[in-house]
């Protein structure tokens, strides 16, 4: 599903990614590890289509609307409520039975009670959960997650564990994390950055 050869990306003069080779078949679960600033985020953004490569080649064999991306920013509008945010993305992604799906996700991530509150009143953990709702809203085939467990409390992390296990068979995963052991039982491949 994802194929990269000699993939490189520079920002100005700085070369953040250089000569990366990657092969992730459909149904795979790849864990990307490495210290801060090693290029994990850049790789994920390239795969999600938010960046274009400056060197090498990258083929992502999935349509844009089938990709779910979770980055460092939750990508929610602070002045809109949780419900309004998800409704916006739901409409853009043409999610079938939008209202039901939104309700179900908010429930699953424990945000149903806060659905009519503006996102700027959310804690970081709640924002992360809302971001996860946004990511999973359109039932993507490829999930690109950049440190999904960050900011989550124990309850949130447990919820995410459950979701990932549930989705394991239905999607392909590319996950960057500082805690690879947590995902070890799910992972089929590992990519380490120096």
């Amino acid at each position, binding site marked *: 599903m994802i194929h990269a050869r000699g993939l490189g990306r*520079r*920002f*100005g*003069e700085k*070369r953040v990614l250089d000569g990366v080779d990657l092969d992730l078949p459909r149904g795979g679960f790849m864990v990307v590890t490495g210290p801060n600033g090693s290029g994990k985020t850049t790789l994920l953004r390239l795969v999600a289509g938010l960046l*274009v490569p*400056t060197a090498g080649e990258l083929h992502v064999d999935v349509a844009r609307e089938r990709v779910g991306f979770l980055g460092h920013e939750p990508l929610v509008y602070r002045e809109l409520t949780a419900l309004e945010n998800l409704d916006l993305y739901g409409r853009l992604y043409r999610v079938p039975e939008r209202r039901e799906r939104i309700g179900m996700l908010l429930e699953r991530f424990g945000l149903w009670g806060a659905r009519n509150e503006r996102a700027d009143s959310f804690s970081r953990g709640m924002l992360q959960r809302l971001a996860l709702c946004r990511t999973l809203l359109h039932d993507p085939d490829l999930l690109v997650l950049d440190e999904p467990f960050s900011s989550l409390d124990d309850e949130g992390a447990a919820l995410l564990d459950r979701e990932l296990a549930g989705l394991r068979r239905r999607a392909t995963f590319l996950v960057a994390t500082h805690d690879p052991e947590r995902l070890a039982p799910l992972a089929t491949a590992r990519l380490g950055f120096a």
Partner: protein
Amino acid sequence: MSTWLRNNQVPALAGLAAVLLCSAIALVFFYAPEDADQGLSQKIFYFHVPIALTAYACFGWGAWKALLVLWKRTSGADLESYVAIHQGVIFGALTLITGSIWAKISWGVWWTWSEKQLVLFLVLFLFYSAYFMLRFSVEAGPQRENLCAVYALFGVVLIPVSFLAIRLSQRFIHPTVFTSRGPQMSTAQFATFCVALAAMIALAGALYRVELLSKRLDARLRELRELLA
């Protein structure tokens, strides 16, 4: 084309430009007949108009390369577009300067709003100067290439639109109208004009190639330095 010419394109072009420039100067001052009412001052016309036309050509070339950046994703087109526009701004500034000198000699003022070409160049000069502000404000990379290319294309569309606007504006701004030289030129004048035009274009071409060469060398040096690091 002989091998020597192929290998030495830049010096050959520079040589051609030098020859044409000298010929043009010689023709302007010794061959072309003096204008009946404007006298010596009219000679600057042989520089001002070719410089202006060359500037347009540079902006046009820059826009063409910009189109290649966006459409064909040709590598190197971004640098070529940038250098072309850089040359265009230089020649544009020269247009304004020679135009101003001509206005001073002919009508005693350093600036006049009645000369549509001059006003157009002022607007374009502002526009393309902003191009450089844009370029130096964004980090190098695919996005900067795209932004500069889009802006260059906006520029080339602005040229005719601005000209129309300036023409329209003169209906209600009513500037003092100065009598300007007629478009009819004698054969001698026309020949001189053509040589001068060829000289300016050759000069722009040579400067373009030289600057392109130096920028490419810079880029190559940086690449090598990185490989060593």
